[in-house]
């Protein structure tokens, strides 16, 4: 099997995640799309590590997971705070700093 197939799959997943970030307006779904993009990057890391025969890519993917966990914690706390004050999780309505 062509080892580049994994990279193609990672590219497809990353693209779907980017599309989700662009079109969805519920903050939580936007966040889920970002998670999907991080997962696609991880898949590319692991596939590249195997292609080159080194383990550094696996460690990079591991670190990405840790950073994603920290990011999710802070991001969800921000979403909860915005929801508490505005009663809405839509990213269109959080436009206080627009003008």
């Amino acid at each position, binding site marked *: *099997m*062509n*080892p*580049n*197939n*994994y990279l*193609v*799959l990672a*590219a*497809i*997943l990353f*693209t*779907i*995640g980017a*599309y*989700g970030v*662009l*079109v969805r*307006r*519920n903050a*939580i*779904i936007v*966040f*889920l*799309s970002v*998670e*999907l993009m991080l*997962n696609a990057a*991880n*898949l590319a890391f*692991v596939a590249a*590590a*195997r*292609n080159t*025969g080194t*383990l*550094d890519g*696996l*460690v990079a993917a*591991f*670190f990405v*997971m*840790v*950073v*994603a*966990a*920290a*990011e*999710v*914690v*802070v991001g*969800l*706390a921000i*979403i*909860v*705070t915005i*929801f*508490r004050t505005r009663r809405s*999780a839509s990213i*269109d309505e959080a436009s206080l700093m627009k003008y």
Partner: protein
Amino acid sequence: MTGESLVFGVSGTFAVVGAIGMVISRKAVHSALWVAFAMINIAILYFALEAPFLGIIQVIVYTGAIMMMFLFVLMMVGVDSSDSLIETIKGQRVLASLFALTFGAMLVGAITSSLASPSAGLSTANDNSGGHIQAIARLIFRDYVFAFESLSALLITAAVGAILLAHNERWEPRKTQDQMQRERTLGTHITPLPAPGVLASTNAVDTPALLPDGSISTTSLPGTYGTKGQVDTSREITEEGK
């Protein structure tokens, strides 16, 4: 067809299906479950890629912890908070589709046109350290130990930040017993509020109590009902039936 290409075909297809389901489902809960599905399939792909440690971590950390935290937050901000499908920015969806297609085609084209060397495999790297876990541990705790320690600081900071953000500040002083008593006896409602769902045929909180003239009493419902149009008004006695 080797076993690996079979696993790649099935799990890769499922991962893409999960990702597409995440983008197109309207309810946030469905999106979260689709992403969890996609992540489990990515974990299977990690196993196929000779990375069982990362596969297990993916299941535990991503599907087990992160996605379940998403579900908890969804319960807090309202499970039925579905997106409206009306475009607020004109042409956004078309432009986004165009961008995604171009971007994806560019990435896929660049990857497929690059020369595919046969995969080196991880067995040599594993054997040099006496096993897969030992090899990863050597990298994390020796070569990348500074990054590892920095990440621990990052996690602590994130936890403290989340506590700070989600902490509920009391904006007004707590009501004293004296104030509560005055509100009860001098307010508009001296009696207790009517209870919902006390009709003979039903026992649900979305069933409002009927007033003596047959109309429904919205004060009998919990605060969140009534505003969303979730009140069961089928038992209301209207003018004709009086």
